[in-house]
């Protein structure tokens, strides 16, 4: 039943959409089938299949002429002849009536009220009216025109209902296989959209092309392009745009929507879709429009377009304009990123801070922008207020990046107690290698030996830099500004010049009065005799002595002389109370966000006891992704890794090559920022885009101390030693 109904309907529908109502009327009765059976098969009552069984119903014994009349109306003379022969065989006296080619009676007679309902789109009332009429006047039937048009209206209603409900697949199935080329344009738009929604965009494109090929109305043609921009990729839309007619004035008919087209091309470009290149005049036209339009999205689009093309200077004013027009936090984010790319970091920081709450991207950017300065080995002077608010944001958002940045800033400016506090938070939130290393440094500096021992043992086998504290290398490391002799620095007249005094309410980051803070300022006075450094005449900077080419041997600068030459493989004397020590493997530092802490009354309830309470092993094992441990140079080995790996990983996970096809692989080679004081690239820095973050403390070796020979397999980040 269904299998038969579907094609029958579609044939009918094809006729309907082609506007050939006569054909539609004929085909309502299903083509070659006898009308009565066709009507039955189609579940259409015989009474309403025009001119079929009415006569038969009236004279049951007379020959049934309905088939004959039916074929006659279709003009199928061969079938008329065959049916005539058939009837003459059955009824030898029967003659072909004269009127079989005459128009059928009752076409539209007395249907005025019904046509009124039809015109008023009152389909339900129309059905009821016909129903009442059939019941009240036996033998009456609606005209074929009315039936066809009402059916068309029902179908149209069905299509639009599917369209409105988003029942795309049902809509597509409904019209599948039909010749829809002459349907009304809004129906075609609906069908095209339905195809696009179920990813049949080839069909969508074809329907739009059909419209442009057949429809001459300007409004409809332009609207078709607009619909296409909403449903197709721009590369496909361009095929339609190319079908434009050129008017007598030489103007492209789609010139009226050229701004819309440019906008769609820009949007496609921003989404990495293939799109037509936007010409200068085209862009200018769009900008002229965007400048006047009050919608902030228009200048914002111009702004992001330039941003993506890395035309930051061009983009800057457009971001500002978009904000003036009421642009949102995402526009502000674009502005902050643009400022950052123009090296206007101070301004970028302000914008990101102001817009941090409505959009987390800005909060992240705020933390990341200043992180770079904060983690410089000789950090620049930063106003206490800026540090204060940075700390506040870090606390509110439990930002590991923010905490470690402040921790390093404090550490590198000799504020150890404050550094300790920030490092504890950083290790709770962000226990990366540089963070754990910095925490160990400050613990050692503050002589918190219990915690220090815990850290170095916990990260044995994982973080080489932490273990370096137990097995220092034999290279020269310059003193940090904090390690220099302050008295000598003061005598040189430098101390206090930039000493911050702190501010009211500033509980942390209070600078030690008298300390030199500014990165542009000298180290103070290194101990020249002990460290063999060279100095500038003003004794403001210290540099390591550069070896002559071909000069052999390591500079032995370790004052305590713990290690001999590397070749001798002398085993380091370990303080057994320090290392190795059985240590709980768990990092138990926790600092919940203020919100979480306040809500901590929640129902954590009874929880499991730790099933592995120790004691824990003393010998580290291999961890895939981790390079060699410092003590391996003395012949110590590690246990095999969890899957049996016995050798150190080379390269380590931190030097992993970006797999081709990822966004990561497409990132430009990292542009290391230039250190303002030294003019040298800052090592260990990282991109600060949406996914980037500072490696932690990019504690590169100060240029004052060129490293002797470098280190094998060293990652890009080197660390300052404490």
């Amino acid at each position, binding site marked *: 039943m269904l299998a038969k109904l579907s094609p029958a309907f579609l044939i009918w529908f094809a006729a309907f959409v082609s506007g050939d109502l006569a054909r539609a009327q004929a085909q309502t009765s299903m083509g070659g089938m006898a009308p009565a059976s066709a009507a039955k098969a189609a579940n259409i009552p015989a009474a309403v299949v025009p001119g079929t069984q009415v006569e038969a119903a009236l004279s049951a014994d007379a020959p049934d002429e309905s088939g004959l009349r039916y074929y006659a109306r279709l003009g199928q003379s061969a079938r008329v002849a065959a049916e005539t022969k058939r009837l003459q065989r059955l009824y030898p006296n029967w003659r072909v009536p004269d009127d079989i080619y005459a128009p059928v009676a009752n076409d539209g007679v007395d249907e005025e009220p019904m046509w009124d309902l039809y015109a008023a789109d009152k389909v339900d009332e129309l059905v009821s009216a016909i129903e009442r009429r059939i019941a009240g006047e036996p033998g009456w039937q609606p005209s074929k025109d009315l039936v066809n048009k009402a059916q068309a209206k029902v179908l149209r209603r069905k299509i639009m209902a599917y369209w409105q409900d988003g029942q795309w697949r049902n809509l597509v199935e409904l019209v599948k296989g039909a010749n829809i080329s002459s349907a009304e344009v809004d129906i075609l738009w609906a069908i095209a959209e339905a195809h696009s929604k179920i990813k049949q965009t080839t069909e969508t494109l074809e329907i739009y092309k059909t419209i442009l090929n057949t429809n001459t109305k300007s409004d409809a043609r332009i609207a078709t392009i607009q619909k296409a921009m909403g449903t197709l990729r721009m590369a496909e839309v361009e095929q339609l745009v190319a079908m434009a007619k050129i008017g007598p004035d030489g103007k492209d008919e789609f010139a009226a929507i050229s701004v819309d087209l440019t906008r769609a091309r820009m949007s496609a470009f921003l989404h990495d879709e293939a799109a037509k290149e936007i010409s200068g005049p085209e862009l200018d036209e769009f900008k002229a429009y965007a400048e006047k339009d009050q919608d902030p999205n228009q200048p914002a689009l111009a702004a992001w377009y330039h941003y993506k093309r890395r035309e930051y200077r061009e983009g800057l004013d457009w971001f500002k304009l978009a904000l003036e027009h009421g642009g949102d936090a995402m526009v502000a984010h674009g502005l902050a990123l643009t400022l950052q790319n123009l090296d206007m970091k101070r301004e970028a920081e302000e914008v990101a801070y102001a817009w941090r709450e409505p959009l987390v991207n800005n909060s992240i950017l705020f933390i990341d922008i200043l992180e770079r300065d904060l983690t410089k080995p000789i950090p620049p002077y930063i106003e206490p207020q800026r540090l204060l608010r940075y700390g506040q944001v870090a606390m509110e958002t439990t930002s590991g990046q923010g905490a470690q940045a402040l921790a390093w800033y404090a550490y590198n400016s000799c504020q150890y107690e404050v550094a300790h506090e920030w490092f504890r938070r950083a290790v709770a939130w962000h226990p990366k290698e540089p963070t754990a290393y910095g925490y160990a440094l400050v613990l050692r500096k503050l002589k918190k030996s219990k915690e220090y021992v815990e850290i170095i043992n916990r990260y*044995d086998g994982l973080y080489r830099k932490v273990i370096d504290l137990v097995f220092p290398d034999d290279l020269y490391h310059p003193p940090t500004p904090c390690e220099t002799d302050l008295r000598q620095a003061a005598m040189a007249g430098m101390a206090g010049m930039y000493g911050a005094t702190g501010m009211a309410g500033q509980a942390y980051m209070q600078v030690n009065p008298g300390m030199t803070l500014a990165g542009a300022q000298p180290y103070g006075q290194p101990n020249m005799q002990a460290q063999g450094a060279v100095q500038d005449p003003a004794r403001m900077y210290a540099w390591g002595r550069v070896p002559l080419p071909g000069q052999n041997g390591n500079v032995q600068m370790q004052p305590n002389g713990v290690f001999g030459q590397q070749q001798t493989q002398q085993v380091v004397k370990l303080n057994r109370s320090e290392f190795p020590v059985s240590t709980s493997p768990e990092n138990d530092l926790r600092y919940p966000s203020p919100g979480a802490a306040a809500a901590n009354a929640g129902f*954590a309830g009874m929880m499991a006891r730790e099933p592995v309470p120790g004691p824990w092993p003393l010998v580290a094992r291999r961890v895939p992704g981790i390079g060699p441990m410092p003590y391996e140079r003395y012949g110590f080995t590690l246990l095999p890794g969890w899957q049996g790996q016995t050798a150190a990983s080379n390269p380590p996970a931190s030097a992993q090559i970006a797999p081709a096809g990822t966004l990561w692989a497409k990132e430009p080679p990292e542009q290391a920022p230039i250190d303002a004081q030294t003019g040298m690239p800052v090592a260990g820095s990282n991109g600060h885009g*949406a996914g980037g973050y500072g490696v932690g403390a990019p504690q590169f070796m100060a240029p004052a101390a060129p490293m002797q020979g470098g280190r094998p397999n060293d990652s890009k980040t080197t660390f300052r030693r404490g």
Partner: protein
Amino acid sequence: MSPRAALLAVFMVVAPLTVAAQQAPATQTRPATAPRVVGPAAQQAPEKPLDPLQLDARAIPLGGALKNAALWQAYKARFVTEQGRVVDTANGMISHSEGQGYAMLIAVAANDRAGFEKIWGWTRANLMVRDDQLVAWRWEPNARPPVADMNNASDGDLLIAWALAEAADFWGEQAYKIAGRRIAVEVGRKLILLKTKFGSLLLPGVSGFAGEDRKDGPVVNLSYWVFPALSRLPLVAPDVDWAGLTQSGLDLIKIARFGPSGLPTEWLSAAGGDVRPADGFAKTFGYNTIRIPLYLAWAGIGEREHYQSFANAWSTRGISVVDAQTGRSTESLSEGGYSDLVALTLCVTNGKPFTGEFFATRANENYYPATLHLLSMIAANMRYGSCLRS
């Protein structure tokens, strides 16, 4: 026929077509490359195409979706330590990023913010040791150092990022949103291979699975497509094409069917024109891939054919590890939590109501089936109320 019926028939002439229309997609969209499903399961499949699934794919918030707090309480008492570590009891008491992510999700569903904070606090303090925003996947309590591998597992990353996004949404906590965004964006940056012939692909880890790492790379695991996460991560990272990843996952599930059972193997090579079982891995349908229907159902996505191989296999012989080449079960998965996956799948495909067993607390289950139990229940609460009411 009464006049009324007659007229209705005229005007509703198009209505029956919708039934015909609904039958079409299943056959129409089946790719030509899909291996023919033969064997016992296929023979029992009904010959006439079944009705299409009527699923609701709208993104639904997770917060508060687990009504039965006692189940979560019992789970915590057995598997979550005071510190917030989730213990895999059948696997040397280790922990992994995936388990931490699951427990974070369940805590949000159970509206247990204190519990969530504990688990997230442990996770970041102990597993976020990589030099990026991703999570080291494996942690062993009796080793030095406890982190067993610096590699990540992208399903663990997705689960944790998703849990943070849900927690931020449910409790209005900016800190969770930022943390979730940092992880999600890093997944988008480092782990999604764009514009492959299968669309976007999800690398299981940063190291070891790409074309650079293996001859048959990229190698993928379909159970790493955590579909309900992909539909909710736009909360924190709308700039990543999660929908594209969903689509590739759906496409791959249709074509990754092997042997008589028509089930996918755990590890797939996407190096050639078609997917095939990856080299060097057991060619089995196992502990990982049994979660595919759970994730589909939890997201409310997929068509009948996405579920059918699983439903056929499980409804005839129960859930088990299957040798994809022979189609034979090699290990029956008897703990109750595994059966809950079956119950959820048959609810989706057949509308089969859950039995009392689905709701029961089970004291002896190990971490993994116990987790699957709670996850299935949350998914059922969120989208399959009709199977709960019976």
